[in-house]
């Protein structure tokens, strides 16, 4: 059996047995919703309704209801798309990359982080469809024979790569998530009291029985899926960045984009995981499983990726000067000192300065401070995309085309509404799905829980 040093902080607090884990994780699913859940759900659904109204108005009237113009043809739509896709990356990092690195602390948080990934990618996809203006022709980027001639899609175009990357990422994430859920649905199925919940969870659990062969295959499938998802998640944001990097717009045409976008994605994703889990652990009484140690570990990743992002910002600036390309130099000086200086400096403050506070272990282990900093990072990463997209576009090569961009209430509605969509999905998930991967977490009860550590301490003395 796996042995672990007693010096390592326990991953499960309290002297939990396997059955305690089952009870604690199934409780939210089996009990009635509390007041806080109902309030949060009402607010989220209100946001969702606003989203429906704004999207319907856009599609019914046309893209003219947005604040876009001839010079700034992409703004909040793509900002929000990239922001949501980036947030999704943390879930895959936790479930795939940390699995390959055998980080056991992932086990308490992987399920909810993967759920966050899926809902975030759904939100991102809605922006792709709505920014087309005519979503009924949304099949055009697919490699289909069409009635307009023998033209096929252009596979040299990064926008076509993106269609493949995002759809592969979304479908593989769902499969990865669902495979892990099957044994946990079986636990709820076996405990179900009413006829209907029994029937529903029997269907959801696919008739799972944990025979030795099933578990052997299950573990192999998880491992190979993790191996496939790791390069996949790195490729997705690289491809997203190439939507910009392969263009010739000054400020976009930079080779640093793929690694810089991936680091930024993980950075923003972990911030969102913190925002969500700090609430979830409190509301669902999971503080023994999602411990201060987990919060600390995630804050360390935020610190590392935040520093990478900071270095990338400075490198970009240096290379703009060093390249000697006047257009590139102007784009960067305009970012920092032009009319959108406030967006640039919001980005710099939120993304470069605030995460550096995490060098202090007091702040890393402080839940309230973590929550506040995670909100700052979420805001900062939104501004990063806004700065990249809008400030690079709004001053064209032709001076007469120079213009400013400001969003209308419709764009604001779609953005805030998408947060409502995200939270509606997440709150429903927290009520009907097991939010912690029980069957996986049970494997570390004997090695990494507080109870096990006490026991082995006792036998040593």
């Amino acid at each position, binding site marked *: 059996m796996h042995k672990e040093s007693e010096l390592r902080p326990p991953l499960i607090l309290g002297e939990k047995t396997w059955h305690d884990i*089952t009870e604690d994780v199934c409780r939210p699913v089996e009990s009635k919703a509390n007041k806080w859940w109902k309030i949060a759900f009402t607010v989220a659904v209100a946001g969702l309704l606003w989203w429906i109204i704004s999207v319907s108005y856009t599609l019914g009237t046309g893209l003219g209801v947005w604040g876009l113009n001839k010079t700034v043809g992409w703004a909040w739509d793509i900002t929000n798309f990239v922001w949501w896709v980036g947030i999704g990356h943390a879930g895959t990092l936790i479930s795939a990359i940390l699995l390959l690195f055998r980080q056991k602390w992932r086990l308490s948080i992987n399920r909810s982080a993967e759920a966050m990934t899926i809902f975030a990618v759904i939100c991102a996809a809605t922006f792709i469809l709505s920014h087309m203006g005519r979503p009924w022709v949304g099949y055009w980027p697919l490699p289909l024979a069409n009635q307009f001639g023998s033209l096929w899609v252009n596979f040299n175009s990064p926008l076509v790569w993106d269609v493949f990357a995002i759809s592969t990422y979304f479908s593989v994430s769902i499969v990865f998530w669902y495979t892990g859920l099957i044994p946990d649905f079986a636990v709820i199925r076996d405990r179900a009291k009413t006829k209907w919940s029994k029937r529903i969870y029997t269907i959801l659990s696919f008739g799972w029985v944990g025979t030795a062969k099933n578990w052997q295959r299950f573990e192999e499938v998880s491992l190979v899926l993790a191996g496939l998802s790791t390069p996949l998640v790195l490729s997705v944001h690289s491809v997203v960045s190439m939507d910009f990097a392969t263009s010739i717009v000054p400020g976009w045409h930079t080779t640093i984009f793929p690694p810089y976008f991936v680091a930024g994605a993980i950075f923003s994703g972990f911030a969102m995981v913190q925002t969500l889990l700090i609430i979830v652990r409190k509301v669902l009484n999971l503080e023994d499983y999602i411990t201060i140690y987990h919060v600390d570990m995630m804050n360390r990743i935020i610190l590392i990726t935040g520093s990478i992002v900071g270095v990338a910002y400075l490198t970009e600036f240096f290379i703009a000067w060093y390249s000697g390309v006047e257009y590139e130099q102007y784009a960067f000086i305009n970012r920092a000192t032009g009319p959108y200086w406030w967006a640039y400096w919001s980005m710099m403050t939120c993304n470069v300065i605030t995460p550096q506070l995490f060098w202090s272990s007091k702040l890393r282990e402080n839940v309230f401070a973590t929550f506040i900093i995670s909100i700052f990072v979420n805001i900062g990463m939104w501004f990063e995309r806004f700065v990249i997209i809008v400030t690079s576009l709004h001053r064209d090569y032709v001076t007469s085309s120079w213009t400013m961009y400001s969003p209308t209430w419709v764009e604001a509605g779609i953005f805030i509404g998408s947060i409502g969509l995200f939270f509606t999905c997440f709150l429903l998930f927290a009520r009907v799905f097991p939010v912690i991967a029980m069957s996986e977490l049970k494997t570390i009860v004997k090695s990494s829980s507080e109870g096990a550590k006490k026991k082995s301490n006792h036998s040593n003395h």
Partner: protein
Amino acid sequence: MSAAEKKFVYGIFNDDEVVVNAIGTLRSQGLKVKDVISPFPIHGLDHELGLARTRISICAFIYGMTGLSLALLMMYYMNIFDWPMDIGGKPSFAFYKNLPAFIPVTFESTVLCAAHGMVITFLLRSKILPGVEPHIIHPRMADDHFVMAIQVKEDTDLAKVESLVKAAGAVEFKS
């Protein structure tokens, strides 16, 4: 032998190490231990039971190679063979020249086919599908109990099997 002819009795355990150790003990006493149903994967259980290594990762590799070939074939046919386009002075005239631009889609297609193919194979092969009725031997076998399936004959002395299984650490016996 059909399933109807097989008869199983079950030892219920409440500890993973005990159940793994019991396999060897009971087998040496002449019992046919066929399977262990557990609430979570137990490291080394497949080895102890003598299960062959799963070949599902080989399947994944084959599916992945299929996805890779299909993607390259598709892009070759559409952009090089059927209708080469000249966009921005960068013509698509030769496959090898376009290959760098084809890598992202090739990679995504490889992952897509490998992941989905493997999971579908897993579900079909293990007969885990929506609508399948599970055979539940113990109400807490997905929670914290371990079920050992032992194959017996019609004329086996069940009382003796029960005493052996209980001596090996089982908390309950079901026939």
